[in-house]
């Protein structure tokens, strides 16, 4: 039997050797690193996740509109107000935190995140009176040169804080007589929307103190056809859409705000029937002067219903350029839109079921749908 053993052993050695030769070398040891963001792309979008089911844990996801990948996350606390610095290099998040998570001592704070590393660099403590509302681009806003950061307060009496983001300090607080929001409206000017239909504009000096204030004439009727509080920045100012589809284009580039005659998104036959509606109700490509609006069919009380179509307009000619129905794509209604500001723009559209659709913003061709991009993607930002 010994010879049989020797024979089997002799037979198996080559097989064993062959196996050893065919197995690749072991994998190299890995080194744990922190991923660095690639160079900033104009097709990035910051997706604000309001996290409706657990509001104390809102966050912002950085999403790449070309690779359709999530690049990172910024924490956002409770009822956050969010904006990007004019150069796009910083995300400012004004939020509220409780010492015991869901309860306990309250801290209101603005946190600054470096958008090249997604690391928090510093914070400014605020008085405990931030405006706690579903967010818009005008609850927290930078001045045009980033010298000031304005933070809306509401107790429910309305005012705003003037902050120095570089020094990390609060400079003061300005009462706004019931008018709401902080809309940057020129060099060291801040405007607020009033229930009377007027725009309040406050001028500050370089130290952040008020030097003048002025009320415009009424430009909308809050009873007949209110404007959505969230305006959309344009090259010269802001566009405000009304519930019935009127477009109020305000130019902030002069000594005081000037109001173009309103024009309508809808024909007389469509008015009252087709309406804008969403959490974030429009986007503007500033260089091309194009306005993108989620539109739906509905009556009074549907101003927050998302869009079944995206309608596209030229802001100069007021012409409707396109209607993009969404039905064929299996998308639910669109509740937030944003457009990239580059010459080959893409349109981001977040839906009521939390998907993110990406369209070619010039042709309307659907490029991609990311399912469930966040829990409650109700606002989209890019610089």
């Amino acid at each position, binding site marked *: 039997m010994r010879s049989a053993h020797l024979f089997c052993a002799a037979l198996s050695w080559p097989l064993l050797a062959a196996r050893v030769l065919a197995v690749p070398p072991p994998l190299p040891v890995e080194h744990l690193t922190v991923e660095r963001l690639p160079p900033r792309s104009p097709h990035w979008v910051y997706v604000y996740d309001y996290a409706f089911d657990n509001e104390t844990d809102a966050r912002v996801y950085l999403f790449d509109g070309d690779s359709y990948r999530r690049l990172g996350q910024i924490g956002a606390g409770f009822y956050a107000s969010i904006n990007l610095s004019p150069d796009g290099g910083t995300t400012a998040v004004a939020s509220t935190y409780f010492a015991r998570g869901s309860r306990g001592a309250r801290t209101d704070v603005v946190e600054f995140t470096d958008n090249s590393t997604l690391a928090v660099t510093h914070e400014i403590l605020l008085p405990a009176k931030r405006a706690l509302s579903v967010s818009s681009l005008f609850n927290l806003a930078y001045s045009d040169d980033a010298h000031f950061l304005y933070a809306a307060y509401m107790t429910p009496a309305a005012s705003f804080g003037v902050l120095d983001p570089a020094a990390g300090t609060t400079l003061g607080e300005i009462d706004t007589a019931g008018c709401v*929001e902080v809309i940057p409206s020129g060099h060291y000017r801040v405007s607020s929307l009033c229930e009377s239909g007027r725009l309040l504009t406050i001028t500050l000096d370089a130290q952040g103190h008020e030097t003048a204030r002025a009320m415009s004439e009424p430009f909308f009727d809050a009873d007949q056809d209110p404007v959505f509080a969230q305006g959309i920045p344009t090259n010269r100012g802001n566009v405000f859409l009304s519930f019935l589809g009127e477009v109020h284009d305000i130019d902030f580039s002069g000594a005081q705000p000037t109001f173009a005659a309103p024009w309508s998104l809808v024909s007389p036959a469509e008015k009252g029937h087709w309406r804008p509606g969403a959490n974030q109700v429009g986007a503007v490509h500033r260089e091309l002067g194009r306005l993108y609006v989620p539109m739906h069919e509905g009556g009074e009380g549907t101003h927050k219903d998302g869009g079944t179509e995206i309608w596209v307009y030229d802001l100069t000619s007021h012409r409707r350029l396109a209607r993009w129905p969404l039905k064929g794509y299996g998308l639910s209604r669109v509740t937030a839109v944003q457009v990239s500001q580059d010459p080959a723009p893409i349109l981001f559209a977040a839906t009521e079921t939390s998907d993110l659709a990406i369209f070619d913003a010039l042709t309307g061709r659907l490029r991609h749908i990311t399912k469930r991009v966040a829990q409650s993607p109700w606002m989209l930002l890019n610089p």
Partner: protein
Amino acid sequence: MRTIDQLFERSTRSLAQRTSRRSLLASVGQLLTGAVLLPLLPIDRAGVARAAQTKPRANGPEDCQYWKYCAIDGFLCSCCGGTSSSCPPGTTPSPISWIGTCHNAADGRDYIVSYNDCCGKSTCGTCDCVRNEGEKPIYRPSRNNDLNWCMANADVNYHCTVSVILGVAEK
């Protein structure tokens, strides 16, 4: 339970009334059992248990289409341990609120409804409901449902929203 609901939903007083639903049931309970009452409401819990086993009554207080919810935004306290006009245990009502004008088809009247928030705990997370009849943007805060109306409470965390009849709307 429905009778008691109706009794208190028709009330034009606010949440903080002396003869609360809880105390009424407590009195009834004491009469029935003669025992010291626990903080729990035996009748209430049985009702809640029954509701959990069967589907919520269509267009009832656990349904977003309930007539009183015409301008509500948030989570229905009816699903969270409260009712359409009472806060769940351990939460605190907001003293300030927004209002809506809702039509009650059952009696053909329009009512002014106060939407107070119940505060001090994280979101209830069930029965979310957003309706916007007559709702206005935040420059008209009394009609706006985007604001956290817990804002003036000691603890501003938002849990759920109730709907309290203030009275009949003037024509």
